[in-house]
């Protein structure tokens, strides 16, 4: 299975480090009860199984394309993998490795394609071919955003303003973003979205560079799924408390679940007004833990940037300038026909 593949016209894009993270987190453990293998997103060596997965994906319907494999964040490669590159090359129109280090090129034995420009030990665009021709293609970031927006649009549930009352906040939401639907309709890509969230979280050094690793805190079923994958990618613990629910709920037994001085990062699928996040923050801080912030897949920016909290991270933001699904938060003041 390949999680990061994006097809665009005659191009196929793959992020090697995301694939390696998937292999290292979920495929590498061969079930020996005595050894627990899990590398998460910390693995930086590309292994054979990952290359075979990519090959399998190409064979299953993506042949004769120009395949672009991004190797940034990949530091090393398993020895003797020339065979795999040769096999991939056989089924594609052109194989391009981007941001690949010279050491990897040499170790793969593909330095015989000597027409590529390598400067300072890095090759920005290595063509596994004799002739290096200029190929122009959109950036992976653009394609990712487009693919994410398409998925988002396909999973919006619309309802009448009257029926759009959300019990956890006193507002009406006529367009409900169904994150579970996104997950179900494209499982592989959704894993890649979580991978990106994991990388983003790790880059926040104020969270990740600390003696005590944060604990992922999730408060609903979607959040629990995301947090469990994040927990494999980041190798951090997770705590789940379901049914944080409505604003006026009374909590009787929460104290014993939160560790004193534990550092908690709240994971959610979709953040609109952030009511549940606030509840979580209160529960955590009241019970003696430290609330670090919030990480989510989609976030609605209800405030202008300078008023926003700084302890949030999200894969996709919906805001005034960027609102492909025409998302709206309504109150009775906006709705006349109630």
């Amino acid at each position, binding site marked *: 299975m390949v999680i990061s593949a994006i097809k665009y016209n005659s191009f196929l894009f793959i992020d090697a480090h995301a694939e390696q993270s998937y292999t290292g987190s979920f495929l590498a453990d061969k079930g020996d009860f005595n050894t627990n293998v899990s590398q998460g997103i910390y693995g930086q060596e590309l292994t054979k199984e990952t290359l075979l997965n990519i090959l399998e994906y190409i064979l299953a319907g993506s042949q004769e394309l120009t395949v672009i494999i991004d190797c940034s964040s990949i530091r090393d490669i398993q020895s003797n993998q020339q065979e795999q590159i040769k096999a991939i090359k056989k089924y594609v129109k052109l194989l391009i490795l981007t941001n690949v280090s010279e050491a990897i090129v040499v170790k793969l*034995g593909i330095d015989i394609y000597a027409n590529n420009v390598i400067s300072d030990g890095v090759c920005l665009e290595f063509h596994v071919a004799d002739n290096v021709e200029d190929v122009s293609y959109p950036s992976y970031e653009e394609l990712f955003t487009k693919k994410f927006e398409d998925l988002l649009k396909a999973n919006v549930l619309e309802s009448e303003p009257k029926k759009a009352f959300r019990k956890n906040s006193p507002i009406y939401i006529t367009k409900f973003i169904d994150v579970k639907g996104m997950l179900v309709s494209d499982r592989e890509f959704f894993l890649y979205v979580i991978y990106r969230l994991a990388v983003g979280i790790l880059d926040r050094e104020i969270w990740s560079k600390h003696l005590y690793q944060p604990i992922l805190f999730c408060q609903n079923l979607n959040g629990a799924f995301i947090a469990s994958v994040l927990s494999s990618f980041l190798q951090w613990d997770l705590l789940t408390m379901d049914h944080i629910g409505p604003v006026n709920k009374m909590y009787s037994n929460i104290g014993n679940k939160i560790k004193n001085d534990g550092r908690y990062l709240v994971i959610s699928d979709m953040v609109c007004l952030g009511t549940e996040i606030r509840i979580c923050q209160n529960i955590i801080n009241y019970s003696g833990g430290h609330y670090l912030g919030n990480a989510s897949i989609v976030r609605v920016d209800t405030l202008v940037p300078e008023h926003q909290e700084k302890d949030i991270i999200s894969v996709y933001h919906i805001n005034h300038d960027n609102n492909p699904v025409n998302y709206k938060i309504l109150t009775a003041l906006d709705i006349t026909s109630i």
Partner: protein
Amino acid sequence: VLIDNGIYISSQNGQRLTTFKFYTELLCDLGDYYRSSDYNREPPIISLDRNLIIDPLVLPLLATMGAYLKSFHKKPLFLELENDLSSNGLIRFLIQSDFLYVVGDNKNPQLPLGKEIFIFDKRVVGGFSSNKEMQADHKLRVFSEDDSGIMAYKKQGSAESQRDYLIEYFYYLTTTHFGPLIERTTNDESLIDHLFDTLSELTTNGIYHSETDVFVMMFNTAKRCSCSISDYGKGLYKSMETKASNSYYETLGIVNELKNIVSLKMSIDVQHAGFAIFETLYYSMLKSRNGLFDLVLSIVLDFNGTFRIHNESVQVVVSARMHNELSELRKLRLKIYDCHALFNMEKTTEKEFLSDMLILSRQAKSAILQLANNLFIRYTLDIQYSAIRILSVKLKGVHIETEIPKI
């Protein structure tokens, strides 16, 4: 020291038991035990002095020796430990490095499963005089072919895929087991990657060729990072015997030529054991795969380290003293590697490839023969500082130590 019914290991004048002493003194005593008139077909009792200082690199060898003797006598050996509750640092070291769990009969899945090599009195373990912990990841590891994680490797089709499968598996294991240790050793990323590659390649070789358990220990001190990998399998000569000839490689070609060239008088077994090391290096040098030979070159030339390979009764120490010869060999090796790469990527025809390889393999052969012969000549001139050590007692299997200094 040899005693009535076994071997008593102690440190004289506070000297530590190094792998050199293991090969030269301990194994000799063991040989004497089997030759002595008291020998009654019972395995020797190994007893450890409570003041013994043991080099961590010896632990895999000790476990290998025990495992081999166990397979010979078909029963476990007795290990005598003394604990007087005041100077029991040795037992503490043996337990904290997991040695006693690996060689004992531990069934607790939280700890390494015991291989039942030694029997010892469990009551002596404990009551440690100091609670000082050693570095938590200085542990003896054992890998074996029937670990459930690698049982599937034989189904992987070709020999190369089997090896790739094992290498990948051990890459994950070594990063899990030794990752923190290696990352404490150095900040040099290429060195870290290289150490992971080294460990997974050597462990794979052990499992793949020896068909026995493989014992691995990695250790770092302020000055160096060393690891020791050992098995008690069939040894290099028997492995090399099974390699098929082709148009540029002749089975046991190096061994047979060295028999004619080297003038040093040795028994046929010692000749086989010693020459097979060079045969193996040569074979590895001709292959399209990155393997043992590239590893040796890289440890010595790139990281200024030492590579010691011990096969049956001969040890060869490859170190920076052979810098010139090794640099020449590396040039040849790169040419051979390129030659394979070009052919593999279909840039040269088979005919061109074979004719190139024939020339290169001849050059490589004469270079290896030259190197081997020089080493044996130097051995006759100066035994003490020779890169070759011929030992009077053999220890079955292949035992490799690598040492990389910290910069």
